[in-house]
């Protein structure tokens, strides 16, 4: 199912499910289908068999722009030394209570 390339007749599609109202759609997997409608049907039949969600998004896998794993160092490592970006260093006055 999670093929790397395409076949001429059934390209790869990525499937996203919203598990319930208010939550974001989450990537759950991929499938092959001839067109968008059949991809939506296949997603329903493959990924929502156990009450997983209330909404589906299907995206052609070719439309996903992905970062290159080789660039991971450049892209993501610099943030490791900047722990001050986490909001854990601020003291919240007692009177504020729960934020």
């Amino acid at each position, binding site marked *: *199912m999670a093929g790397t390339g395409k076949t001429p007749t*059934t390209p790869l599609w990525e499937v996203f499910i919203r598990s319930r109202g208010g939550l974001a759609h989450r990537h759950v997997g991929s*499938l*092959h*289908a*001839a067109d968008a*409608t*059949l991809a939506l*049907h*296949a997603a*329903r*039949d*493959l990924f929502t*068999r156990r009450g997983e969600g209330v909404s589906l998004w299907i995206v052609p896998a070719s439309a996903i722009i992905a970062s290159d794993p080789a660039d991971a160092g450049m892209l993501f490592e610099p943030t490791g030394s900047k722990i001050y970006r986490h909001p854990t260093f601020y003291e919240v006055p007692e009177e504020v209570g729960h934020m």
Partner: protein
Amino acid sequence: MATTSISVAETPLVLYALRRADDALILGHRLSQWIGRGPTLEEEMAFGNFGLDLIGQARALYAYAAAIEAAGHDEDDFAYLRDAPQYRNLLLVEQPNGDFAVTMLRQLFYSAFADFYWRAMMTSRDATLAAIAAKSEKESAYHFSHAAEWVIRLGDGTAESHARTEAACEALWPFTGEMFESDAAERELCDAGTIIDPASLRVPWRARLGEVFAAAGLALPAPDRWMQRGGRSGRHSEHLGHLLAEMQILPRSFPGAEW
């Protein structure tokens, strides 16, 4: 076979429940026969899901038949301990899977009917049947949507897929008339408001199929063609016996087997 068949007291309501349950069970079993043979994993899962929907409908109807018959039979007895002449399903649903076009067209013909049928049955005066209808209607609506999408693509696809879909229609069409028939037993239930008259669905069913066939570039056969009948009274095609032999061999050979 080690276990003998049960005998069922077919009052009108028991007979009715068995007919609808048998439709669902036999079609569900047919779809389960695609498991391991599907053209793609995605489509095989769809058939598996539809089969489970239908077998679920059958279970609810068998359980109801058991309750009103009150003869100590359960769902499994109805499914596994009746022979072909005791089965009351439509001839359409027992027809072999054939190729992908045959399976899809059989599903289209049946689900186009079942969707309308269960929707109308939601107003039944029988609360159990109305509840079964409400659940079955949603399932049937999706079966119809899926089969319609595929039949459009098969008919409007390649010369090969078009020819196969035409051939499937030619083979299955004579089995569609039986869906709209009813007999004295059912008319009695109709008059009481327990069930609806399936004949009332003939026109909307044909109109709905007409839309799918037009989009598929297929010609809908004439409405007045000769139709097969007999399934409702136990006169089946040769295919049902083979299906039941496979489905029943285990519980008949090892009664009460659990795994």
